[in-house]
């Protein structure tokens, strides 16, 4: 990937952050911390890696993305909207009555959603089943699942981890958005599942630790998939909670954000300033 493409991806990620804030503008609340920490990964998946057709969301050959940590739904809504799955005006209905974009995703309400997640510890099993189903019908589509770090305390994840390795599902990649914070505090203090990569490796996964907010590293990681033939891939994405909101980064309470107008404006100004800078940078790179 050249510099221009990388800058374009970074710009897209910031535009998606702006989409998240558009949802927060509508509702004045939302799980912002995890949506922002996972933004580079989800943006790179949809705009660089995945083979998808936004106008044909049920196309059989599509790659699948599941948000196991369903509370990060704003990241997926933001990226799907940017990708053209639905009109951006839908973002203004976040938090509203009968919205298509509820707090946790619903596959029957919005195109592009693959699973009804929200209860933690479900996504990896569903993703493993998809990967197994696709492989057994010789469909080359890939499956990507994004989990939270606090979510790893759910035992069902480890059932899925064993099954995916046992069935050698190298068409499955899981990301752990390791921003290190959950509602009650530091993940390691609440319930320690580190070292995450080593745990999955012990189950038979091929693993990598990366900086999940560094778009270049994210792209290089996606280029390397599957890490090993015959093994599912696990990316421990070291990220920053509320990445891109200078006054919220690495603060546990930004897991769920209920900003007043001034804080929201400050956040929007920050993101828009980065969008402007990246647009300028892109023009310069192109020139």
């Amino acid at each position, binding site marked *: 990937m050249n510099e221009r493409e990388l800058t374009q991806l970074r710009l897209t990620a910031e535009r998606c952050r702006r989409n998240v804030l558009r949802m927060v503008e509508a509702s004045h609340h939302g799980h912002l911390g995890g949506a922002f920490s996972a933004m580079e990964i989800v943006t790179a998946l949809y705009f660089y890696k995945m083979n998808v057709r936004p106008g044909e969301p049920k196309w059989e050959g599509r790659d699948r993305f599941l948000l196991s940590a369903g509370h990060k739904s704003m990241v997926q809504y933001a990226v799907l909207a940017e990708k053209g799955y639905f009109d951006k005006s839908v973002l203004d209905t976040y938090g509203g009555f009968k919205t298509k974009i509820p707090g946790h995703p619903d*596959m*029957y309400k919005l195109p592009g959603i*693959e*699973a*009804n997640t*929200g*209860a933690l510890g*479900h996504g*990896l*099993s*569903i*993703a*493993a*089943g*998809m*990967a*197994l*189903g*696709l492989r*057994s*019908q010789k*469909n080359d589509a890939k499956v990507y699942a994004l989990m939270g770090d606090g979510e790893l305390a759910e*035992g*069902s994840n480890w*059932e*899925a981890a*064993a*099954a995916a390795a*046992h*069935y050698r599902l190298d068409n499955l990649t899981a990301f752990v958005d390791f921003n290190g914070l959950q509602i009650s505090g530091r993940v390691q203090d609440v319930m320690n599942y580190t070292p995450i990569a080593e745990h999955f490796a012990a189950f038979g996964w091929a693993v990598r630790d990366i900086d999940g907010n560094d778009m270049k590293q994210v792209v290089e990681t996606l280029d390397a998939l599957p890490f090993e033939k015959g093994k599912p891939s696990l990316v421990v994405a070291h990220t920053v909670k509320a990445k891109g909101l200078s006054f919220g980064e690495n603060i546990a309470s930004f897991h769920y954000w209920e900003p007043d107008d001034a804080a929201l404006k400050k956040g929007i100004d920050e993101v828009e300033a980065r969008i402007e800078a990246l647009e300028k940078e892109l023009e310069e790179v192109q020139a």
Partner: protein
Amino acid sequence: MIGELKDPRKTFGKAVSDLAEQDERIVVLSADSGFSSGFKEFAAAHPDRYFEFGIMEQGVTGIAAGMATTGKIPVFCAIAPFVTCRNYEMFRNDLGYMRQNAKLVGRNCGFTYSDLGATHHSLEDFAVMRMIPGVVVLAPQSPDEIRAASRAMLEHEGPVYMRIGNPKIPELYDGEREFTIGKGQLLRDGSDLAIISTGSTTVYALEAAQKLAEKGVSAMIIGMPTVSPIDEEMVLMAAKKVGKIMTVEEHYCRGGLGTLVAEVCAEKAPVPVKMHGVPQEYATSGPYEELLRYYKLDAEGITEVALEFISQGSFVL
């Protein structure tokens, strides 16, 4: 009671295997439970369609949902409490809320795993499964009906829970009857009392009807192999024609078939309903026949409860 006794698990496994010959989408998932669910031959015949996961019912339920999204029809059978209670949230969200076409079958249902104790009994599976919107709950009553219900379950688009027992069971009638999800069966007409039964107890309800007849009581017998959605029309027919209903099930007497019948009656045709089953306790253990006798779910017990109910007359408000 007609013909030789047959093993419900083997009957079920064979039925699914036969249907799988015609439909490549059918796959079998196992939580170390497939061989004892009648799938040994299936596993040998279709190794590429038989998936073993070890003892992880939560994981397998999610995996079943994922496979179903790709067009497969997963069938997952294990001991009843482990595919209903253990994995309840996965059933609710991944199969129910996601409306996936997967079939979960609870075997050794009720207290048929009698001597293994309450951890292995399922006396609330109807109650918990019927609360998940869109889930069909089946309890076939005979070997032929297990075959027919398996076909109906696999032809139905959407999540299904079916329970089957463990001890060998007899046929209820000659030949295979048509099985329609949501339809009850008038097995014997009567005018003093309508007994609505499901699953394993229906054969005893039929025997009880004979005993009751000998005592001058005319009992209508309705077989209700679909617990949910309940056959409202059939319940209302019994309520209006007979005016006194007793439900029989190898399940807690609250929350299952009795409750479903009572709901229909309460809203549309209020008649006395005696809900007969296991009281709200952790059932005792021992030989199956002794448990049936203890909980009055054999022919003698059903007869006794029916006579007592009859003797109470109608409600006086």
